[in-house]
């Protein structure tokens, strides 16, 4: 069980980074207190992981066979990649780091199955695009069917407040369901833990990151999202959560950060603001290519060294 520690470390890093994409808006605008957000996120991440987290585990498991040692190295390499990127203030995606790390270790052990990669890459590319489209659909639905019924500021505030909490809970559930595979998927493949145990341990690991280290990231990310307005931020979080949840159902772990970027761009398009700039595209591309490559190299070196 000691070898689960690197998975736990990865889950902690994931929780400390990704909770910001879910409750960042509500916390940064002081709609709800940090601790309320952190506790709600922790509870619903675990619920999502336990109830619907197995699909992603199956997908990641199909990339390569695992031993307890390789699972340890894979998780450690992914966790180091995520920590390094966070330290260097580069865009981070745990899902992409884990896939890179699995392949890196698999190459050394000659166990990589490249077939599921196409499905995974497509999911990565369609995460921001999907969130963009969903955000546009939500915006259209709101403006056509709902906006006229909420023409009182106090009523609108209440709806946005409740909405941000509900979207946060939904997003936490989707994060747990989608991303828990990144944390303990490789261990489940080894048979060291059952899928249910893996989901529970992974969920708790993510929750530990949320509870101990997510406050500052939440404030930073939340303030960026709320530059749009509370209502638009709510739609962005709902679109992001829906996208991530869809991928949880499909069974492919994706990046919540890229989903929120896509949603925000979609809202910008509707409002006539072009939020697609070189930096945004560079960050997304780096997430698709740079993150898995770095994780792959670290994992490759570690596995080579251990072998």
């Amino acid at each position: 069980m000691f070898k689960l520690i690197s998975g736990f470390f990865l889950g902690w890093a994931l929780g400390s980074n990704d909770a910001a994409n879910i409750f960042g808006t509500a916390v940064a605008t002081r709609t709800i207190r940090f601790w309320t957000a952190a506790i709600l996120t922790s509870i619903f991440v675990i619920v999502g992981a336990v109830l619907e987290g197995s699909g992603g585990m199956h997908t990641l498991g199909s990339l390569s066979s695992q031993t307890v040692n390789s699972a340890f190295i894979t998780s450690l390499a992914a966790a180091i990649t995520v920590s390094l990127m966070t330290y260097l203030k580069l865009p981070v995606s745990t899902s992409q780091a884990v896939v890179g790390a699995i392949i890196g270790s698999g190459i050394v052990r000659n166990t990589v199955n490249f077939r599921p990669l196409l499905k995974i890459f497509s999911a990565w590319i369609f995460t921001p695009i999907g969130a963009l489209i969903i955000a546009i659909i939500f915006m259209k639905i709101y403006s056509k069917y709902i906006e006229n019924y909420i023409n009182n500021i106090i009523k609108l505030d209440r709806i946005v407040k409740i909405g941000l909490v509900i979207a946060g809970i939904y997003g936490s559930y989707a994060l747990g369901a989608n991303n828990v595979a990144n944390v303990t998927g490789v261990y489940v493949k080894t048979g060291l833990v059952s899928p249910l145990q893996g989901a529970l341990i992974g969920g708790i690991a993510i929750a530990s990151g949320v509870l101990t280290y997510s406050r500052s990231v939440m404030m930073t990310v939340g303030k960026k999202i709320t530059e749009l307005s509370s209502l638009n931020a709510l739609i962005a979080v709902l679109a992001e959560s829906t996208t991530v949840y869809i991928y949880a159902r499909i069974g492919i772990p994706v990046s919540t950060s890229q989903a929120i970027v896509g949603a925000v761009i979609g809202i910008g398009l509707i409002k006539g603001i072009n939020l697609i700039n070189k930096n945004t595209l560079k960050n997304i591309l780096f997430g698709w290519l740079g993150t898995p490559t770095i994780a792959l190299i670290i994992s490759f070196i570690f596995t080579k060294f251990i072998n």
Partner: protein
Amino acid sequence: MVGFWGDTDKIVDLFEEHEQTVQSCLDKFVKTIELYIDEGGSDKVKNLSKEVHNLETEADKIRRNIIKLLIKEKFLLPNTRRDFMNLLEYLDKVADYAEAALDYVILQDMDISEIGKNYLNDILNMTIEQYKLLKKAVSLLFENIDDAYEYVAKIEEIESQIDDIERILISRISKRDELSYGLKSLYRDFVTMIANISDVIEDAGDEIELIIAMRKI
């Protein structure tokens, strides 16, 4: 309604009370100026002037109560609280500016009938009309925000008309050779001060426009 969302009706009531107090202050200001043009600094004018001061102080008190409520209550998003505070500041300035303009003439014992009674009356009456539109626009924020746009547009129209009168008056004052430079300067300042009331009403209208725009898709 006091409950999970806090005292939601109270904020609306206090806003209405504040608007009404500023309206009374503005009405009294106009009445005082009109009387001052006819009678100069009579006792009646001084008493009316005191009432304007009292109403301005009353508006300040209500404003502070609204701010306290905005800080204490939990039913509004922080952005909305900030927007309401900005709007409240503009509304309050209407009373402040009226009080300041009145003090300006009374304390200096100026004969403002020289400026042009009809023009001054036009500005004052249009300002009252403009403020009534602002009151309606504010109340629509709590009823039907889309309709508030229409009132804001009318507020802007009136402000532009008042600006035209202000320019005519200043030009007339400047061309009058019989007036000393000092007197011209005092008259110009007074005209600017009463026209500023309309400017601040327009600023409040702009704030309302911003509040609505930020809440639209």
